[in-house]
C-alpha cells in the first residue's frame, strides 16, 4: 500500500538547515491503522505531510499504491491527493461559508462530478457520519465533534485509498475524542487504511500499530492490541 525508504527532509533556517527526517523507512499494508507518535519537533507532522504530498522529500523513495511519488508538479500532486488521499485536520478546516453538504461534496467537485451525483454521494457520507439532518447547516452551527465528523465525511467522499489524520482529536474534549475514534475505528473495520499523527497515548492505543519518532528517526515500530473506543463512549 505504502512504502517509504530512506526518506530525508530538511528545512532551511537562516543560513543553516534543520534536518527533520533522517532516513525514515516505513511500509504500511492495506487495512492497517497506524499511529505516528512523537514529541513536537520529532518530525511526525513533516512525515505525514510528505505522505500527503503536501510537502516533498529531499531524498528517498515513496511509493503509494505502486505509484512512485516523485517530482510532482502542483497539478499532478493535486490530482493524486484527490484520488488517493483523504485528509482529516486537527482544526477541521471546513470552509465556513459553505454548508455541511457542500463541504463534503467539495472533493467531488474537483473530481469533476456532476452536481446531482455530488449531492447524492455527499448525503450518503453525511448519513454515514450520522449528520444527514445537518446537511444544510453552516460549520459554525455545529459542535466540534460534529465539525470533525463533517470533515471525516469530506475525507471519505472521494473514496480515498488512504486516510491521513493530523491530530484528529487534538481540538476535542475526551468524550468527543473517543466518539471520533470509535468512528475512525469503524472505518478501519470496513477496510480503510488509516494513518494518524497524535501525541496522546490513549488515542494511539486505539490504533493497531504505533510508530514512535524521535529526532527524525523511527525509535520504535510495534503492533499493539487495539483498544476499542466504544467501551468509553
Amino acid at each position, binding site marked *: 500500500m505504502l512504502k517509504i525508504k530512506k526518506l530525508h527532509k530538511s528545512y532551511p533556517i537562516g543560513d543553516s538547515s534543520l534536518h527533520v527526517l533522517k532516513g525514515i523507512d516505513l511500509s504500511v499494508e492495506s487495512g492497517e491503522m497506524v499511529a505516528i507518535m512523537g514529541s513536537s519537533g520529532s518530525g511526525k507532522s513533516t512525515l505525514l505531510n510528505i505522505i500527503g504530498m503536501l510537502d516533498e522529500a529531499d531524498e528517498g523513495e515513496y511509493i503509494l499504491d505502486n505509484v512512485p511519488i516523485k517530482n510532482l508538479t502542483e497539478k499532478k500532486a493535486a*490530482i493524486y491527493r484527490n484520488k488517493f488521499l483523504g485528509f482529516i*485536520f486537527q482544526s477541521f478546516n471546513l470552509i465556513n*461559508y459553505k454548508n455541511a453538504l457542500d463541504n463534503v461534496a467539495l*472533493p467531488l467537485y*474537483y473530481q469533476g462530478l456532476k452536481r446531482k451525483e455530488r449531492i447524492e454521494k455527499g448525503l450518503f457520507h453525511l448519513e454515514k457520519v450520522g449528520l444527514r439532518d445537518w446537511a444544510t447547516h453552516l460549520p459554525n452551527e455545529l459542535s466540534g465533534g460534529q465539525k470533525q465528523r463533517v470533515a471525516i465525511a469530506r475525507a471519505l467522499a472521494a473514496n480515498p485509498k488512504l486516510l491521513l489524520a493530523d491530530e484528529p482529536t487534538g481540538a476535542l474534549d475526551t468524550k468527543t475524542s473517543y466518539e471520533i475514534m470509535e468512528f475512525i475505528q469503524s472505518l478501519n473495520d470496513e477496510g480503510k487504511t488509516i494513518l494518524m499523527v497524535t501525541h496522546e497515548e490513549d488515542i494511539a492505543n486505539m490504533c493497531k500499530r504505533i510508530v514512535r519518532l524521535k529526532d527524525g528517526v523511527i525509535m520504535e515500530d510495534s503492533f499493539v492490541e487495539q483498544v476499542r473506543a466504544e467501551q468509553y463512549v
Partner: protein
Amino acid sequence: MKFLFERDTWQEVFDSLNKNKLRSVLTMVGVWWGILLLIGLLGSAKGIENSFNRLFGSFATNSVFVWGQSTSKPFKGFQEGKRVRLSLSDAKKVEENVDGIEFVVPRNQNGGQVVRNFLSGNFSINGDYPLLDKVQKKKMARGRFINQSDMDDRRKVAVISEEIYKQLFEKDVNPIGEYIRINSINFKVVGMFENGNVNMGPTSDIHIPFTTFQQIYNQGEEIGWMMITGKPEYDIKQIELDAKLLLKNLNRIHPEDKRAFGSFNLGKEFAKMTGFLTGMQFLTWFVGIATLIAGVFAIGNILLITVKERTKEIGVRRAIGATPFEIKRQIIVEAVFITLLAGFFGILSGGWILILIDKTIGQGDDAWMVNASVSIGVVFIALVILIFLGTLIGLIPAFKATSVKPIDALREE
C-alpha cells in the same frame, strides 16, 4: 470555456462574494464610477456634437464667402483705393479654374421695403441661383425654392422666410400664390422656408431669382459676393487662396494685396469647432478610462486582500484536490465578474443620467445637447475593456493565491 456555463463555478463566485457583501459592494464602486463617468461624458459629448450638427446640418460647411472691397496697393496704373466689384464672369472663372470646387454661387443682396396689404417691413432681398438650395439647404415649410425657369423668364417670384410670413400675413393664411410688394413691384410668393438655426453670412429673408434681381436693381453683371464650396476631400483654405489669387489677376489687383477681397472661411471656423469636439471626446475617453483603471486596480487590491485572508481556505481546497489552475481560474472569474457587474450597473446608471439630460436640457430647438447618447459600439468597447482589465487585474491575486505552498497555506491561521 465550458466551466463558465456551469452552475458550480458561479455558485463558488456568489459564495465568496456573499461572504463579505459590504466589501464586495465597496469594491465595485470604483469601476461603477469609472463606467458611469465614461458613459455620461461620452453621451454628453455626443449630445453637444449633435447640437452642433443640427445647427450646421443644412449647411455645406466646406465653404468660403468672398466679396470685393477696396485695393490697398497700386497696381498696373491703378491707384490704391480702387473699388473692387465681383462679376458673374469672375464667379464662372473661379468655378472653371480652381481645383476642388464643388459649386460657386454668386449672390446679390439689397434692402427693401416689403408691403402686403396694410402690413409692411424692411427686409433684405437676395438675388439667388437655384443652386443656393444645394449649399445652404432651405427647409421648405410650404411651396418650393427658386427654379431654373424662374431664372430664365426673370419671373417676379419670391421665397420668404417664416419670420416674414409672421410679420406680413394674417394667421392661417396660405402665403403661396399671394402677392407681396417689394420696392413697389409685385412678387408672387412661391415658397416659405423655416428659419435655420444658423445663418451664415448676412441674414436672408427673401430670395428672388438672380436674374430678376439683376433687372430690377439694374445690377448688370456685378455680384455682391460669391459662396465657394469645395469638394469634401479638398482643403478649403487652399481653395480660398487659389480663388483669391485668380480674382486678383482677373481684376488687375496686386497679388499681395490683402485688403482687396474680404472673405469668411466657414470651413476653417467649422474645423476649429470640430477640433474642439474631437478634443473633448479624447478627453472623455482619457478621463473615463483612467478612472476605470483606477477602479479596476481597487478591485485588484481588494481581491489581493481577500486572497490573503483566504490563504488557508485555498490551502484546504488544494489539499482536497483543487489544482492551481482551478484556483487561479476561480479567482479570475471572480475578478471579471465583479468588474462586469460593476460595469453593468455603471452603464445602467450612466444611461439613466443620459435619459435625464435628454429629458431636461435636451428638449427644445435651442438645446445645447441634442440626443445625448452612446452607441452600442461604445458600450461594447467598454465591456471589452472591462473584461480585459478584469482578467489582467485578476491575474495578480490569482498567482498570489497559488504561490504559497499548500502546506504553508494550511499552517496559516
